[in-house]
């Protein structure tokens, strides 16, 4: 079977991509209007939503970048994983109930719709939509690039595709992504999340078992090998240090509940009482899938510092090299298809919220109503956003690596800093005002952008995202308190905030 490793991997990936296309065709028949396209008609069951929540949290970064970070910096990045349970708790306690209530009562299709309803402010809607669009571009570009690079690494191992170019791989990846996202919208995404989520959990568990058997002494020997080389790498703050890690606890713990692609899923469930099941299922799913992040990273670091294998060319190669050397060919196929599943699921979720921002929210801010024939324009804009993001990805790869990094700075930490105050506090405190919401979004954009543009390196690894989230939260509360214009809540919103 070892002789057919490449063929098996390609087979798994091909089966998965064909499955996505079939689901896209099936979902197209169930997507009759923009509500179906953006929020699946708010009719999803608890298991589908739970799988969607965790699988869109764990993007390609969790499968490629995460193990790479553990390989290069030891335990530091495990803070991102460990605090995710706290992030889910905040999301479910503070957002899931009221966002679903507002969506139900106001027929909201997007997060900016909810923000506009809560603050009765088109400015708050527009700024939220703009933040989402900027973040989506950066995120999506990195996802497309990751998908193309992994596809290239798989195909180039065959004789037929030995010289396949990155552009060709981008085109192939986009073909499936566009077809899947355009035809099925969020309905396709939610139903493939069944398979994607299961696949990711299975991959995480099997990889842990594989990783524990690489060394005779199991994970204990792995830790001891890392500790002997550099003790700090095996200790709780890794090589990146205490303040960096605690900063990540804030940005990822608090910030998880500000990720628009994730909290939009909380608008899609049929019944609010399903949250009682969705929360623990999401948590368990994420825990299984995240095992890959930890186990691959530590084993690869131990194998390299122990001299068992050669150093990697790039830290992001940790997962692919692990699969090539230590995993059974079938397991490698499962994990590669899980990786594509993670990327596809997250990309589709980003495309969905980015498209909603363009065809629904920004026109409503500018013209007072969304575009006519919203479903048609949603499909057109989905294609356009994908093509623009792919262009960014290729330009960044060949010409200017900082472009995607710059847009990426508008990713997780900007979503966290800009959106957390608006929803985590704003949906639970009646005194929060529209002026405070605008202040929070603008301050978070300014801080994140300034730190990235001027390449500022703050002492002890304090990150721009950490500064931005504490600043925006503090300003949000302070401005609301001192704003002389008291918020005038609509009767339905006022009642919802009492419940």
């Amino acid at each position, binding site marked *: 079977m070892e002789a057919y490793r490449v063929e098996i991997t390609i087979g798994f990936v091909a089966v998965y991509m064909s499955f996505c296309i079939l689901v896209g065709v099936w979902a197209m028949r169930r997507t009759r209007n923009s509500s179906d396209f953006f929020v699946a008609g708010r009719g999803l069951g608890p298991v589908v939503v739970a799988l969607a929540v965790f699988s869109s949290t764990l993007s390609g970064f969790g499968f490629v970048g995460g193990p790479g970070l553990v390989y290069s910096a030891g335990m530091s990045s495990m803070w991102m994983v460990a605090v995710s349970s706290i992030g889910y708790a905040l999301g479910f306690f503070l957002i899931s109930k009221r966002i679903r209530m507002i969506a139900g009562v106001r027929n909201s299709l997007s997060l900016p719709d909810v923000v506009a309803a809560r603050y009765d402010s088109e400015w708050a809607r527009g700024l939220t939509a703009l933040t989402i669009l900027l973040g989506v571009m950066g995120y999506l570009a990195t996802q497309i690039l990751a998908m193309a690079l992994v596809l290239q690494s798989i195909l180039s191992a065959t004789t037929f595709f030995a010289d396949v170019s990155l552009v060709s791989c981008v085109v192939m990846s986009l073909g499936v992504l566009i077809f899947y996202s355009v035809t099925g919208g969020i309905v396709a995404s939610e139903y493939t999340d069944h398979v994607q989520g299961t696949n990711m959990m299975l991959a995480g568990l099997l990889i842990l078992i594989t990783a524990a058997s690489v060394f005779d002494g199991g994970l204990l020997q792995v830790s001891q090998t890392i500790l002997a080389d550099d003790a700090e790498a095996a200790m709780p703050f890794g090589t990146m240090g205490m303040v960096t890690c605690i900063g990540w606890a804030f940005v990822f713990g608090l910030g998880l509940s500000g990720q628009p692609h994730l909290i939009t899923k909380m608008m899609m469930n049929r019944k609010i009482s399903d949250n*009682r099941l969705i929360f623990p299922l999401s948590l368990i799913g994420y825990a299984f899938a995240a095992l890959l992040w930890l186990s691959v990273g530590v084993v690869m670091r131990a194998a390299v510092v122990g001299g068992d294998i050669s150093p990697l060319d790039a830290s992001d190669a940790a997962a692919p090299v692990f699969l090539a050397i230590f995993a059974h060919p079938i397991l490698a196929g499962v994990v590669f298809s899980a990786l594509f599943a993670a990327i596809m699921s997250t990309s589709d979720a980003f495309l969905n919220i980015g498209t909603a921002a363009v065809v629904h929210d920004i026109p409503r801010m500018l013209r007072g109503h969304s575009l006519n024939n919203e479903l048609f324009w949603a499909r057109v804009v989905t294609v356009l956003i994908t093509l623009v993001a792919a262009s960014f990805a290729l330009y960044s790869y060949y010409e200017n690596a900082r472009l995607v990094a710059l847009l990426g700075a508008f990713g997780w930490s900007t979503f966290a800093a800009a959106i957390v105050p608006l929803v985590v506090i704003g949906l639970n405190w009646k005194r929060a005002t529209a002026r405070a919401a605008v202040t929070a979004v603008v301050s978070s954009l300014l801080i994140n952008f300034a730190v990235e543009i001027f390449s500022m390196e703050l002492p002890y690894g304090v990150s721009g995202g950490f500064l931005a989230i*504490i600043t925006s939260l503090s300003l949000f509360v302070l401005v609301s308190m001192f704003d002389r214009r008291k918020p005038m809540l609509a009767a339905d919103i006022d009642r919802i905030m009492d419940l």
Partner: protein
Amino acid sequence: MRLIHVVLFVLLLIAGLIGWILVSPEPPMSTGGPHPEISGMSVGGDGLARVERIFWLGFVLQVLFVILIHLLVALGVASHNRTAAFWMSLAGAGLVSLWVCWKIFSSYAQFLETGETGYFLGFPIASAWMMFGIWLSGALLAVIYVVGFRRFVFTVEDEAAFELLEAQARRTSRPTPPLPPEQTA
């Protein structure tokens, strides 16, 4: 003092601590450096030297993080549902989280002093507390959510009130977005 004032107080304390950390003299390798032999890999070097000035600041920052999270969770529960049982459950979860926080830092400090560590499930004790303990802190909140769902989060009365609101919205067509043509057709 209202809950939001306490949240603001904690946020301002955190901002003050970040300011303190930013002006503290920074030792070499505070955020690691390149591995001497393996390119693409970093090392932390002398742990004691790099946390000497900020160890307690880091600990207090982590404690404030735990307090902030639990205050926010309380904010997320409607005031009429914040019963004594809710506060007791939340306080219990908070104390466990603070204990986890103490164990992470005390186990790490012990290692820095002695150079020796025990292991749990294959990981050094301090790292195991970080990974499993912090995860457990969130899982405890999940238990409160699931077990107390009908008592604190979404009571039967809340559900009835929401259904009434939704029915009213359907009847009176509250300001909903204009229907796209494919819906009106």
